[in-house]
């Protein structure tokens, strides 16, 4: 199962390498990764989708939090969060299937961003599984070309988003949570 990890990192050379290095050193293949700057130009938000073995999850998040360039790393897998992805797609659409394709696109809330005699370019956003379905359906109409943007996420737990030190008050410590305070 994919874990979604969100990180707030310093916008510095090497920060990305340090984070991905922790994953590659353990032999994990990253499913998707997005990085972009935040409101504060000195910080970036990174979202990683990766399948980590359950026994290594907590440890990995702790190691990410230890990185000097990482302000906060949070595992969103089991906490309330909105996770979305953007897909850009080209569909070959001969005359007879154009209407059907547009109908399906509408159902998935996709937008037509380009239309030619040969077919459409579509833009869709949604959660990852929904987009998988959308892609499957479009494929049934023939050849398609897809670029996925990778997961982006935002936690709905307000305390997870604070910028103050995140380790290891509870969340990381399982049952012994509140007891294992910091400071």
């Amino acid at each position, binding site marked *: 199962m994919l874990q979604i990890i969100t990180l707030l990192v310093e916008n510095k050379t090497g920060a990305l390498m340090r984070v991905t290095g922790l994953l590659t050193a353990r032999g994990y293949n990253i499913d998707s990764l997005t990085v972009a700057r935040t409101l504060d130009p000195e910080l970036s938000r990174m979202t990683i989708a990766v399948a980590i073995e359950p026994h290594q999850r907590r440890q990995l998040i702790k190691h990410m939090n230890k990185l*000097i360039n990482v302000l906060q790393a949070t595992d969103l897998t089991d906490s309330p969060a909105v996770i979305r992805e953007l897909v850009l797609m080209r569909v070959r659409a001969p005359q007879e299937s154009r209407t059907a394709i547009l109908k399906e696109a509408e159902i998935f809330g996709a937008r037509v961003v380009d239309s030619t005699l040969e077919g459409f370019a579509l833009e869709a956003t949604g959660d990852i599984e929904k987009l998988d379905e959308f892609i499957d359906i479009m494929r049934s109409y023939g050849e398609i070309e897809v670029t996925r943007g990778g997961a982006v996420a935002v936690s709905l737990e307000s305390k997870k988003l604070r910028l103050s030190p995140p*380790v290891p008050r509870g969340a990381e410590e399982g049952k012994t949570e509140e007891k294992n305070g910091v400071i």
Partner: protein
Amino acid sequence: MSQLMSGAKILLECLAREGVDTIFGYPGGVTLPLYDAMYDNPIRHILVRHEQNAAFAAQGYSRSTGKVGVCCATSGPGATNLVTGLVDAMMDSIPVVALTGQVTAKLIGSDAFQEADTFGITRSATKHNYLVKNVNELPQIIHEAFYIAASGRPGPVLVDITKDVFQGNAHYAPVTSIHLPGYKVYTEGHTGQIRRAAQMMLEAERPMIYAGGGIVLSNSSAELRELVELVDAPTVCTLMGLGALSSEHPNFISMPGMHGSYAANMGMYNTDLIIALGVRFDDRVTGRLNAFAPHARIIHVDIDPAEISKIRNADLPIVGDLKRVLPKINEVLRELKPEAGERPGLKAWWKQMREWKSAHPLETSVSDTEIKPQHLMREIDRLTKGKAIVCSDVGQHQMWAAQLIRFNEPRLWINSGGLGSMGFGLPSALGAQVANPDQLVVAICGDGGFQMSIPELATLFNFGLPVKVIVMNNGYLGMVRQWQELFYANRLSQVTLDGFPDPVQLAGAYGFKGRTVEKPSELAEALETAFADPGPYLLNVRVTPTENVFPMVPAGGAINEMVLTPPQPAEARK
């Protein structure tokens, strides 16, 4: 007031402000401007003979003093040669700052002469690393590097500096503040947790204190001793923690783990409360995990949150600096102790402990015909009286030294614990001697590991460093041979070390004294002569070639099922 200075000069100025008095290094093309600035700078540069040894020497300097060790290398091969020493420092949490030269910024990526991606290569070999391409950033980065290396859980930090940064000029003004928004260090420990920990300690009937390198790194030996006495718990010190509690202390049991004593391992198996202080439950300590302290609850104090519950779930975790946390625990212990009831179990526990100790003491056999390795370590112990700095290489000799030499204080026992890097002994002793010119520094090496760092004999001579190099010569890569004997039907594959050089000629060639000892009757006198000599000394001690280290917990074995003595009779060894 700022001042226009070259990057090289700015670097040296920053080092001076960090209190650096010594750099272990080796020059090269891109560090020429730096070495030119060093020419008339008061910071002492120790020219080693290989960059790996610069990193090991910086560690010896740091491990023996607690200060940050500094090493320096040129780009490309110089930087790559440092890597083993950095990973070694990483594994044992030793604060080291490594400075490397890099090709001129605009040449990076062009396969320039002696270009290597040092920043990328050392990413996982360091606690943090930097690439400096702008001279204006240099001062800030140098001070950050020292701060990161020494604070929190210490470790190595590398700063890769392009040649044009050394050459460029900048207006230098002293750095007054450091801003690292992502760097979190938790020092104080949670008050409630500290209280609960103290209560648990006073309730335990069979407590064990498991003290490690964290006590040494945080300089909290005095605080540990107080805790030991308040709880009156038997105490084991790990390979990294030897000396954290004086070996002479009545509560000291010895080292636990693969080659730990019977009493230490039986204690760890049967305890009902492990008080783990600055340790990381290394596999060499725990053996098979489900047989490690199966009846115990765990209190784990460490400054690194990632160590808590990494291997063994902590029933009571405290994240903090031992130097800050231990006094608080001790305070609660002093407060609670008068009210705490008698612990009848504790008396029985100590009785049991003493029985284990006397049932299987550590092997110290002596022979009339050959020098036993244990005999060698016992003699070193007798003559150094727990006061010398002993730097060990990696192998059987390291285990015997750890078992049999006493250390009355922390920072006397220096060895490569986590990485187990052969070649560590001699250069780390070099670094320790530089930092402690008036102290007896002994390097104990195997005949294998010694030959990995032989060139540093020249450095010893060069700087008049009176290190006593003791080669425990068993003619084998002994530790590997032992495993081949025990687990691979004695099919000895590539472990014979023929052709050890004559130490008299070898040391003589470097300009000091050397000697071979073969007879047990000569051993004491030879060691005394070496230790009394004002200069460096190389002692080649021929010991029983096929002696094995016991007790032994085979890899993945249970700590209560130690192999105590060689399989009888030693048919395989004939």
